[in-house]
């Protein structure tokens, strides 16, 4: 067959004015819904946050900054937050954003029927409680808290809370059920073919936040291409073929595939450290691991530099802290870490009366996390140090079930990104009787975390986090290994794309060269 003839035939069949300017992004699974912060996962957040925006959002370094708000003023007692809305912001249906929209959205989110993931974060069940929301005028919203909280704005900016996205009332059907997101973002929903793709169209009347460049979820946010398509592709080999053929422009691939992609001249590899934490959990309620000397022995048995290099394909750096390395709270104290010390391991094992019992290490083989490679290298290091261990590979849902119930001895696990250190500590610290999934059950730690959630002063917070880190290293309830290095493989045609700490693709201010 004539190659040129067939290629021309294929192009004729596929070409449309839009496809030439469509950025194709690979997702490892379809999104769950387009309802912000409700039926969601990481992929869902990544797509939806192109269409909707909140009052505040994360900057490139993880700090929180105004987004739909022009400015945020905090009262001296820390109880009242006044958001002044940016002028001229429009929803995708042309309506102008007012404080009434913010009030309507807040009422909807706090209604149990909405099923918003983060309702418990704001209704006092976990700690913070918003006692009132008022709109003194069309451009001002005042939110009042029961008690001061250093986490209020950070929680408002959280991606899993969909940034408390402000959507238009017409996003709902007449019966009150969700229809589609009519937000204020640079892209609007084009088409969602379940199991195939989500297509987003450029919102031509978008009013960008101020700034001369993109800055996380804030800063300049103009859409440069008419369409972005997120394609659901589960198979890693197909993703690689798509990238190399030019059919895909952005994809996240496992670290192990990076050398191969770097060798090919047709794509560029971008990396950025994220706040996702990879860890080895040690169950302190297990008869064997309840002895802190056993947990310390495990920590000392691991050659962390080697382990992280192997598991991350030499991309990651050892970080035993719960605070991500790009955080302003990542101090000298946070750099303190476990050291590989075989002699100490021997002593600790003898002191703990270890008799060669086998420790089961649970892992999964998802391609998006290094759970299995971490387990394999850790097992080899533990065996070398005289600690017998066995890997049990579980499918993700089963592992999550075991994690939720605290039903494990050791587990290779990854925590989703939390930018604020107190949020990060909250992920794994708490009373095991009430929350069996928590890895660290320490009253002192809980007190320090509680203080860090209400203290706004950065110096004070730093002291609290530093004390927490030292306490965690001594108690060894889990061993943080490293922060995920996000690796985006992108087409050489793509201009302006960059990976960043939140680990989610952003397709505004990104163009496609011909």
């Amino acid at each position: 067959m004539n190659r040129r003839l067939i290629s021309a035939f294929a192009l004729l069949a596929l070409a449309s004015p839009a496809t030439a300017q469509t950025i194709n992004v690979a997702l490892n699974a379809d999104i769950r819904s387009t309802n912000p912060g409700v039926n969601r996962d990481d992929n869902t957040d990544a797509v939806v946050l192109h269409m909707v925006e909140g009052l505040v959002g994360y900057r490139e370094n993880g700090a929180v900054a105004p987004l739909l708000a022009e400015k945020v003023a905090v009262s001296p007692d820390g109880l009242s937050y006044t958001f002044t809305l940016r002028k001229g912001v429009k929803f995708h249906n042309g309506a102008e954003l007012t404080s009434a929209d913010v009030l309507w959205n807040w009422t909807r989110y706090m209604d149990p029927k909405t099923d918003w993931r983060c309702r418990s974060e704001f209704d006092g069940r976990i700690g913070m409680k918003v006692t009132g929301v008022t709109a003194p005028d069309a451009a001002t919203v005042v939110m009042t808290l029961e008690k001061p909280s250093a986490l209020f704005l950070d929680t408002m900016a959280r991606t899993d809370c969909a940034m408390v996205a402000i959507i238009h009332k017409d996003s709902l059907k007449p019966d009150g059920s969700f229809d589609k997101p009519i937000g204020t973002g640079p892209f609007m929903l084009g088409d969602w073919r379940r199991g195939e793709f989500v297509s987003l169209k450029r919102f031509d009347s978008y009013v960008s936040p101020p700034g001369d460049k993109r800055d996380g979820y804030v800063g300049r946010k103009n859409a440069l291409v008419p369409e972005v398509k997120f394609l659901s592709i589960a198979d890693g080999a197909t993703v690689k073929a798509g990238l190399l053929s030019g059919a895909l422009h952005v994809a996240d691939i496992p670290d192990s595939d990076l050398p191969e992609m770097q060798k090919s001249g047709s794509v560029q590899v971008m990396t950025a450290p994220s706040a996702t934490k990879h860890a080895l959990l040690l169950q302190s309620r297990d008869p064997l691991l309840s002895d802190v000397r056993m947990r310390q022995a495990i920590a000392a048995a691991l050659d962390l530099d080697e382990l992280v290099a192997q598991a991350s394909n030499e991309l990651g750096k050892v970080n035993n802290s719960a605070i991500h390395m790009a955080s302003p709270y990542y101090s000298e104290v946070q750099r303190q870490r476990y050291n590989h010390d075989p002699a100490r391991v021997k002593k600790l094992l003898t002191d703990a009366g270890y008799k060669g019992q086998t420790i089961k290490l649970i892992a999964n083989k998802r391609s998006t996390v290094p759970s299995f490679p971490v387990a394999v290298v850790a097992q080899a290091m533990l065996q070398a140090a005289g600690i017998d261990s066995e890997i049990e590979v579980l499918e993700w849902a089963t592992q999550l079930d075991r994690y939720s119930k605290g039903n494990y001895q050791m587990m290779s696990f990854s925590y989703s990104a939390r930018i604020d250190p107190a949020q990060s500590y909250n992920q794994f610290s708490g009373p095991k009787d009430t929350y069996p999934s928590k890895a660290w059950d320490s009253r002192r730690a809980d007190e320090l975390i509680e203080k860090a959630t209400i203290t706004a002063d950065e110096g004070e917070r730093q002291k609290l986090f530093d004390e927490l880190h030292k306490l965690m290293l001594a108690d060894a309830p889990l061993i943080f290994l490293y922060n995920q290095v996000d690796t985006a493989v992108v087409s050489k045609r793509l201009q302006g794309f960059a990976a960043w700490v939140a680990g989610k693709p952003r397709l505004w201010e990104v163009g496609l060269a011909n």
Partner: protein
Amino acid sequence: MLRFALTRILMSVPTLLIVSISVFGLIRLIPGDPASLMLGDLATPASIADLQARLGLDQSVPVQFGIWFGNLLKGDLGQSINSQQAVLPLILQRFWISAQIVLVAVALASLVAVPAGVLAAWKQDTSLDLSLVAVATLLLSIPTFWLGLLLLLFFGLKLEWLPVVGYVSIAENPIAGILYLIMPIMTLFLHEIGVILRMARASTLEVLRLDYITHARAKGLTESAVLWNHAFKNAFGPTWTLIGLVLGNLLGGIAVVETVFTIPGLGRLLVDSIFARDYPVIQGCMLFVAFTYVLVNLVIDLCYPIFDPRVTAQ
């Protein structure tokens, strides 16, 4: 024939009932539940219990089964926990995509493999026979995912003839739709050739050794008349049965091929639903697959008299 068909359909009811009870029970025995997966690493026992209650998963398994079965009798397979779509339209939509690949691939494979199998039997132990058997064995031995990837690399990446990722419906754009389906169809086609060819060869060989074939030859009939008028009709029965089984199997799940070629078919829906513990979709898919299997084999049985008049639909 109508009575036969109705009897067979009624006989399938207990099968489908057993399938639905076992799938319903087994999927709930696997650890992990949709609420935990939806809430992720920050889930608390209270939030999980809350969501389970809203999804109706807090009730006992027999009660859940009773509700599901009651709705099933009304033709309602429920709603997906994951996508919140109605399950039956979702399955039908995905089934149509899988069916167009499977039906074309099996039809083409049959058209090639059956004559090739008969030919191989006719020329038994010649170089032609050995070559055909070797090719069939090779095609049968290659896993479909690997074959798919090879095609993807060759026709998609190297020659750049066919699109590598994505899917376009034939109804939306017939030419693009066909281009996206060529490689998945080719993968199944090549794999199934091996299966059908070997069966066609074996059953023809068996028939060629029977006395009535010797008698036909002794009558002075030409070899082609012996082969096609006397041997083939009798030898085709087992191959036809196998084609039915292959069709039933493939219609129920070509998840691997669909995953490699990013085809949003029924197999991928089922696999994704299992990973997400989307119980209503898993139950609906399994029941649908079982029903399809029964139906395909019924059609196969009803077609027997066309090839062999001795068989009647009684």
